[in-house]
């Protein structure tokens, strides 16, 4: 039997269709402001890293991370910043760093790990780092953390 009819988006014929914007609360910040904050964080993270404060650097980039539409540049900068932190951390330190993060930050970190792995151009050079962080983070925050990454519509 031809199953093509199953691919028809029947919701498109619904006048009262649910919009993406109804699924989560929009970021109250202006996109330009978000971008500025992302740049400011990038430089403060360098400061933290020069003092060898990985937890401080991670918290800076993970708190109030940009999400939602129209902030692609800020998202990219944040991911770059985050990857620079991950690459600068010794693999033996990862567990302790993850343990000292708040639950919110752990969830956001997991979102970035998956985002990093999804971007093939970057994943190639960062794969082993991302995977070892993923392993340690899952050990500590559990599979619940991965579930939240998959369900949360506030994508980073």
């Amino acid at each position: 039997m031809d199953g093509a009819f199953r691919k028809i988006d029947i919701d498109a014929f619904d006048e009262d269709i649910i919009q993406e914007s109804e699924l989560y609360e929009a970021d109250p910040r202006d996109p330009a402001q978000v971008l500025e904050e992302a740049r400011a964080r990038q430089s403060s993270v360098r400061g933290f890293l020069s003092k060898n404060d990985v937890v401080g650097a991670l918290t800076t980039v993970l708190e109030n991370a940009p999400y939602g539409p129209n902030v692609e540049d800020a998202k990219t900068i944040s991911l770059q910043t985050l990857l620079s932190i991950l690459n600068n951390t010794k693999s033996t330190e990862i567990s302790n760093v993850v343990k000292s993060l708040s639950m919110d930050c752990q969830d956001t970190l997991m979102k970035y790990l998956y985002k990093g792995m999804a971007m093939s151009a970057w994943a190639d050079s960062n794969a082993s780092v991302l995977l070892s962080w993923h392993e340690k983070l899952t050990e500590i925050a559990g599979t619940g953390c991965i579930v939240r990454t998959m369900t949360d519509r506030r994508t980073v």
Partner: protein
Amino acid sequence: MPEIFSISPTPVTAHAFNADRSQLAVSLNSNDAQILTHNGSQWAATEMLTEHDKTITSIDWAPNSNQIVTASQDRNAYVWQQSPDPKTGTIVWKPTLVLLRINRAATHVRWSPKEDKFAVASGDRAIAICSFDPENNWWVSKLLKKPIRSTVLAVDWHPNNVLLAAGSADMKARVLSAFIKEIDERPAAGVWGSKLPFNTICAEFASAAGGWVHGVAFSPSGDVLAFVSHDSSISIAYPGGPVHNIRMPTLPLVTLTWTTEDSIVAAGHDCQPLVFSGSDAGWQEIGTLDDGSHAASKTGPGLTGRLNKSGAFGAFQNADSRGQSSITSTDTKLLTIHQNTITSIRPYQGAPGQVTQVSTTAVDGKLVIWDTASVSALTGRMAAMSM
């Protein structure tokens, strides 16, 4: 000691006991509901309720009026009453069709505390509130539509017979008024509001990290609302006050029930009932009803949703690192009693607010009755992620 019954090789979608717990109505992932009768040691099928032409999604049994209501993907609900068969004179369950006026599947059904109406959640972004019209001798349905934006997955009645909690796939749990002026007396003002005409929105709570709300439940007093969502979290909301959210390190919970005013039992994809305790000052997980001592095997792959090196994970890892393609371990038993997702948890013994036993049914076809007092800490083997 939990009582364990294997009632079916197929998943149990929903279950409901009668008032004296001698009979049980179950839907075994099919179009039919079965009445099982306890014969001392096992549950034996005694009657089949066949009327729906798609899978039954939910069942509820009114304890006082002894009526069963079933909801199904065929967009219908039936109310079943016992009456003598005209030919043989034996007592059988007779169905009455309820026109719900929804054009998507019915997902969940619950009788109101006074048993004079019931609520049917549906995929039509609506909840049908059905009440009996004695003049025309049928059930009439009135729809709660606004502001629901997606499939309603669960409903629960407030003890005042008027307010209804609904959990929905639009990531929200809501408290709505289901006041029917023909049958309801005007409710006393409470924490959820004073004026409550039909479809008043009394409260709306979003799940913390944006997950579908799988289950909702009012506390025994009706003054607190708890809900579980697919972001692996449970939220306990006080109207006008704090909303406490507990994030789980495990797979999501899908069903919950209050046992006392300060404790909740919830279960889901993690296959074991977890106990939460607290007050408006804060809530925490205090343990599990499944202490792990009933597991058939002590060396199995552990718990679902935990990372471990046996089972499927181990098989793939061996294939990857050592080139072994054969599955070395054939033991796939979990350490928990239930071997698959718990789909429904309900009070079994004790008055509301003093529930001493709860019943669970799961995708593994088991029915388990748990003592709510025997909580064991979620430590060691049961909590460990055996890497």
